[in-house]
């Protein structure tokens, strides 16, 4: 079968689907959707349809990125626009089916928006919503729209046309095209992709490898997982193009074993590719052959570092090694190797499908295209987003993210995963691109973006991230292995109120030692959370050290709960709810928190009726209370 025949058949299948007379129901069944309950929703849909004898086409699709409102169910009635419903529970399924499928009422109160042409009264267009409007979907544009387990869906939507185009080009021309697109590595370092390929292509040797780095390990990051789950072929197509351009005939996808669904979909995709002659020997009848293997990683963060990743594939302990030699010269099994991450590969497919010039229209002068981010933390709308590079942080946090939860104020945003930096509000109008973030002391990383609000203690955040990198250090080089542990020790002391004035200087010195002395990027960036918080929030460190006060009221050893005598009505609610019996009092008696017993769980604050608001959390200050419970009447009440 030629590719044209494959494509015609795929398009025919896709058009049949679009023209289908049966209603179509699309359920977001990525890991995120499943975690939010998509499985129960699916079951409810099937039951409901069966009971009512309605024939419908149910498709499990990947994530569209609106994590804050999962599970998502989309319904396409024939000759009607597609409607997305969010926060779907099994309970509302009967209503949706009855009202919309049976009676034609689209339930605007439950709907998020419509997708595609045509409008429905009372329902906005989904992509016009503030959360999606600023986004540009290049790598994610098929996610949520196609069945990721059906290669025909991918092909019908432009899939593998980039490969076909590439096979008609000379390898040098492909590399030139990628260079022209301005694509830079989406794994975080931002090295120009075309140039990297060029090195590998020029390296001597006939045996070469390509590797897809799918070892996404940042806490709170899930861009690569979603892409693999929602559109695995786009990643594989990018790998094929690169393998052809570089002259590689073997490749690996290094994906963490904690991503079972991504692994399953990759395996299905590769099986389908083989059936279509898109993988294996003589791809699409050409001289080009590529054999791919999946290697499951065991979940070490450092294995996302390319040299550690290759060691892991070779069956060795995942530890980085010094460069040179660079992988392009001597990589996997000592052969020239090109390694890119999941998102880079998907970008490559898009670039070859639609042209470098089209791609380069997005982004800034030095940073072309889009970047996906896992936008999490204290924003209203968390999720997976794709934005053009150069977008302002403010736009991401306030327009897409909908601002800070509960109307709280913004404190910092942490970009680039656990080894990124915390940027203060001074940077809200800075563009999101490789250079700006680096200049500010953070990194792009693979695209984690964690928003912190006023209730977050930056010292505690620095401690948290450092405890992660410290644990995930491979232990090979001294600065990273010992330096991060020493830094963590100091941070732990500070958060416990045992900080010493010289600690800040010591931390700074250690951070510089780890940053400048470490072997790989893990150590090189691990101090970033500490360095940036010291730079932008030094006052908070000083409060912890000098005043034994945690301004955000987070560090347990530095906070205390008090019951204000002038507000307490002696209702005994806090007393009854205290898990450790640390509150003394009685009916109509002023309650007192026994500070020695208190475990600072905050239950008393939570349960004190708002009309009394008698419980306060303080840090670094004392509140005068009676020594023994006394009658409410004896205290002058406000």
């Amino acid at each position, binding site marked *: 079968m030629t590719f044209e025949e494959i494509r015609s058949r795929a398009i025919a299948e896709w058009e049949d689907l679009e023209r289908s007379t049966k209603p179509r129901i699309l359920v977001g069944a990525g890991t995120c959707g499943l975690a939010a309950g998509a499985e129960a929703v699916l079951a409810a849909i099937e039951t409901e349809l069966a009971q009512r004898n309605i024939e419908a086409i149910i498709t499990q699709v990947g994530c569209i990125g609106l994590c804050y409102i999962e599970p998502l169910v989309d319904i396409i009635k024939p000759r009607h626009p597609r409607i997305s419903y969010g926060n779907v529970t099994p309970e509302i399924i009967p209503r949706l089916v009855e009202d919309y499928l049976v009676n034609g009422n689209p339930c605007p109160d439950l709907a998020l928006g419509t997708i595609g042409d045509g409008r429905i009264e009372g329902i906005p267009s989904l992509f016009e919503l503030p959360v999606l409007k600023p986004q540009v979907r290049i790598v994610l544009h098929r996610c949520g729209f196609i069945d990721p387990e059906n290669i025909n869906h991918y092909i019908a939507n432009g899939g593998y046309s980039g490969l076909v185009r590439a096979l008609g080009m000379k390898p040098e021309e492909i590399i030139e095209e990628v260079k022209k697109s301005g694509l830079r590595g989406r794994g975080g370092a931002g090295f120009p992709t075309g140039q990297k390929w060029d090195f590998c292509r020029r390296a001597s040797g006939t045996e070469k490898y390509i590797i897809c780095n799918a070892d996404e390990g940042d806490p709170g990051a899930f861009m690569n997982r979603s892409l693999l789950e929602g559109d695995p072929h786009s990643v594989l197509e990018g790998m094929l193009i690169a393998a052809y351009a570089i002259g590689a005939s073997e490749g690996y996808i290094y994906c963490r074993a904690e991503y079972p669904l991504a692994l399953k979909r990759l395996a299905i995709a590769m099986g389908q590719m083989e059936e279509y002659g898109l993988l294996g020997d003589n791809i699409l009848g050409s001289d080009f052959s590529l054999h791919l293997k999946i290697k499951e990683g065991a979940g070490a963060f450092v294995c996302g570092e390319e040299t550690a990743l290759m060691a892991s594939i070779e069956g060795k302990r995942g530890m980085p090694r010094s460069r040179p030699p660079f992988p392009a010269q001597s990589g996997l099994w000592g052969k020239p190797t090109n390694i890119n991450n999941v998102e880079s590969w998907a970008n490559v497919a898009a670039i070859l499908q639609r042209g470098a010039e089209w791609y380069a229209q997005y982004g800034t002068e030095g940073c072309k295209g889009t970047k996906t981010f896992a936008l999490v933390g204290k924003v209203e709308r968390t999720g997976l987003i794709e934005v053009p590079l150069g977008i302002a942080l403010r736009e991401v946090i306030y327009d897409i993210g909908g601002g800070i939860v509960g109307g709280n104020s913004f404190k910092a945003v942490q970009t680039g995963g656990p080894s990124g930096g915390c940027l203060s509000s001074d940077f809200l109008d800075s563009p999101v691109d490789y250079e700006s973030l680096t200049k500010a002391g953070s990194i792009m990383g693979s695209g984690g973006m964690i928003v912190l609000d006023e209730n977050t203690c930056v010292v505690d955040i620095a401690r948290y991230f450092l405890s992660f990198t410290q*644990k995930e250090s491979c232990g090979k080089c001294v600065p990273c292995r010992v330096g991060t542990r020493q830094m963590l020790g100091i941070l732990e002391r500070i958060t416990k109120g045992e900080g010493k004035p010289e600690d800040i200087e010591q931390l700074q*010195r250690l951070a510089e030692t780890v940053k400048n002395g470490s072997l790989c990027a893990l150590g090189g960036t691990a101090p970033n959370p500490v360095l940036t918080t010291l730079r932008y929030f030094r006052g908070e460190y000083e409060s912890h050290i000098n005043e034994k006060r945690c301004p955000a009221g987070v560090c347990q050893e530095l906070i205390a709960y008090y019951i204000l005598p002038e507000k307490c009505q002696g209702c005994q609610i806090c007393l009854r709810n205290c898990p450790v019996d640390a509150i003394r009092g009685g009916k109509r008696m002023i309650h007192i928190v026994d500070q020695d017993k208190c475990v600072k769980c905050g239950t008393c604050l939570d349960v004190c009726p708002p009309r009394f608001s008698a419980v306060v959390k303080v840090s670094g200050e004392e509140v005068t209370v009676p020594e023994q419970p006394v009658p409410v009447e004896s205290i002058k009440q406000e």
Partner: protein
Amino acid sequence: MDTITLTINDQEVKAERGRTVLETALEAGIYIPTLCYHPSLPPYGSCRLCIVEIEGMRGLPTACTTPATDGMKVQTNTPQIQQLRRNILELVLTEHPHACFTCDRRERCGPLDICLRNVAVTERCVTCPKNGRCELQKVVDYVGIRELTLPYTYKDLPIERDSPFFDRDYNLCILCGRCVRVCQEIRGAGAITFTYRGSQALVGTAFGLPLQEVGCQFCGACVDVCPTGALIERATKWAGLPEHIVTTTCPYCGVGCQLDLEIRKGEITNATPSPEGVNRGQACVKGRFGIAEFVHHPERLTSPLVRRNGEFVEVTWMQALDLVATNLAKYRGEQFGFVASAKCTNEDNYIMQKFCRAVMGTNNIDHCARLCHAPTVAGLVTSFGSGAMTNSIHEIGDAACILSIGSNTTSSHPVIGVEVTRAVRQGAKLIVANPREIDLCRFADLWLQHRPGSDVALLMGMMRVIIDEGLLDQSFVEQRCDNFDAFRDSLKKFDLDFVERVSSVPQGLIVEAARIYATHKPATILYAMGITQHTHGTDNVMATANLAMLTGNVGKPSTGVNPLRGQNNVQGACDMGALPNVYPGYQAVANSDIKQKFESAWDCSLSATPGLTLTEIFEAAHQGQIKAICLIGENPMLSDPDSKHIQESLEKLEFLVVQDIFLSETARLADVVLPAATFAERDGTFTNTERLVQRVRKAIEPIGDSKPDWWIICQIAKRLEAKGFDFEHPSQIMGEIAPLTPSYGGISYERLEKEGLQWPCPTPEHPGTKFLHAETFTRGKGRFSPLEYRPPAELPDEEYPLVLTTERSLYHFHTGTMTRKVKGLNAIRAVELVDINPADAAELGIADGEMVRVVSRRGEVTARARVTEILSPGVVCMSFHFAESPTNVLTNPALDPISKIPELKVCAVRVEKLNDHWIQGLDV
């Protein structure tokens, strides 16, 4: 040499291209502190102390991992670097006891003071066993740290004492990874690894198992590279620094490792592999940990013994020598035999054969080479014209293909095993042909498990594939070789059906092996006793020679046919003419010109009749034709086949003199026992397996009243009124050897002082020869030998249904005379083991570890069964190191008709379950 020029600290430095910045700086005498770097290991870059500034490079790259390039500008010591180094080193010290660096009393402490006043034990000071030799100490001094600003953590780990030879105290470990890397990357053992990660990282074994269960070979390479006191020899842990160090040649196998003997108070306290020399800083467990204990063993012979009324009594040298001379005078001529020794120096062996020929008037001299590489000499002389290893040890690592056949390389020649694994690491193909699944199989592309004794069939089968598929080197065969047609005709019988039937190797594997060997050049063949110890041993050797010639793999670097010599000086003993048919340098005794040359040099008349071989000497003794024997440093009671017969032969002698370092099983039968000095107590030379003549240097005074062998023989000769035995030092003996032995013509002690020389080295200007047969074969053209398959002399039958083959343990040497004296070696391998396949064991109802009786037509022994799948059903295997289970009681004395080697590798046996419970319970 491709030279580049760079600037280091504003100093212009020239370097070889391909070296790192660190190596370049060190060679130029510019010190850069390092902890993880070791010259024998690939760069690692973990300690981060060798950071430098390089113009145009980002950050601070490590000198150890950065290649030096032309025009590079390097600064090694800027204030920024010094500050960062101090900070990093301080981090190291927060996890390493460091009072020894920072204590204020340090300078005031004398060498023998033990100061516990200022520091706690966990902080250590002079109580660290590595004090004075610690590399961390040196680096701290250089970088200059006198106080710590960060909190110190003592890991408080228990000291691991599961090795008989060294302690592992990971409280002193700085995780430089040298031990892990040397174990994995150089030794290929992979016994230790990093465990856990991050700040919890440690060095240890998989699941914390004892070393012996994780494949540790106790080679000590980890101890040698450890920069701190974490890994340290237990025996000398507290001995302090050596008074002096003597570099000499290891007395165990034929690799010829250079060892640095550490001497304290006139005793050897330690032996470490010398970084220079053939072993490049590596050794095996025997050389590393098995020297001092046997040299200083209380059972060493310290004075001459004479048998009086059946009992040995100590006598003076004067008495003993007079007695020997008086007796030997009665047995001149063909009733005398001399058993020389592959363990003695070249000079000893030269004197022995001179004594035998010039004084005793007979060529009846031979030694244990008869039992190991006689077929090599016979076969390779026929094929190539020279019977030695064609190429050098260091060439093995650069081969593209290695065929190891009949050699358990990592066990019998461990340091050559290191070379083989080096080749594999560099991408070489490795084919192992062995009936046992030896350690090397882990690295092999192909393992051919052929039946013992089917080597000719297997090799001829491979050659048939090579010819059928046109993979031969036509021009090499035509231009450099002869007799090809006859050889090709003889291949007709070896169709693959036949070869598979005889060898049990599947045809597909034979084809694959042939293709790999023929198409990956340079290809080298390594072989040992598995090829030679057969009744068709010479045929086996010629088959390997045929294979090498057929593919043009002779006369070039990293090719050739390489017999691995078993004992330290078996090559030298042969070179020196301790053989019945040749004078030194393989000059035939039957050649009248040669005879005349030696007659005039030695001023005597010599016998033109070639003498008896070793096996024939004992047979002649059994028949009463030989009446007196001088036997030096050999133990035929354990090493020779059918040992009951040997014992009878020795007992029939009228006079037996034995020279040895211990009262061996053989020495117990002697009339006079003369105590010899060990290698450590005398000067001399050994010639290793690659024809390399190396110095043996006196490190300590002879123990007791022991004497060098050459001295003893000379004293006897002088008492027999012989001339030409007035030597005062072995260098004078070499002075006599060189002009009489063409291949040693250019060898002198003066030249050897600098480095070893590989013969042929005909003139004082000649640099020695790395590989033989470069332009032409020694015999002119290489000769193809037509061969046919001959089965072993004794095949299994109903009564003796199993094939017994023999092996050597890594932990013992030969008959155990030396290694059985070493407690640690005995702790690792204490008893004889009978390897038996689970299928056979099940049929016989034998459990792993049970005592069994092994019976052949010649005798029986008991030993412990080891049920293992490394052997196929029908084959059992034993070593021969244990006097308690003398395996050679069983073996077959049937001889190869050409070389007269007995068939030690194949005989028929049966294994019986022992029902005597008390033996089973006996923990030997």
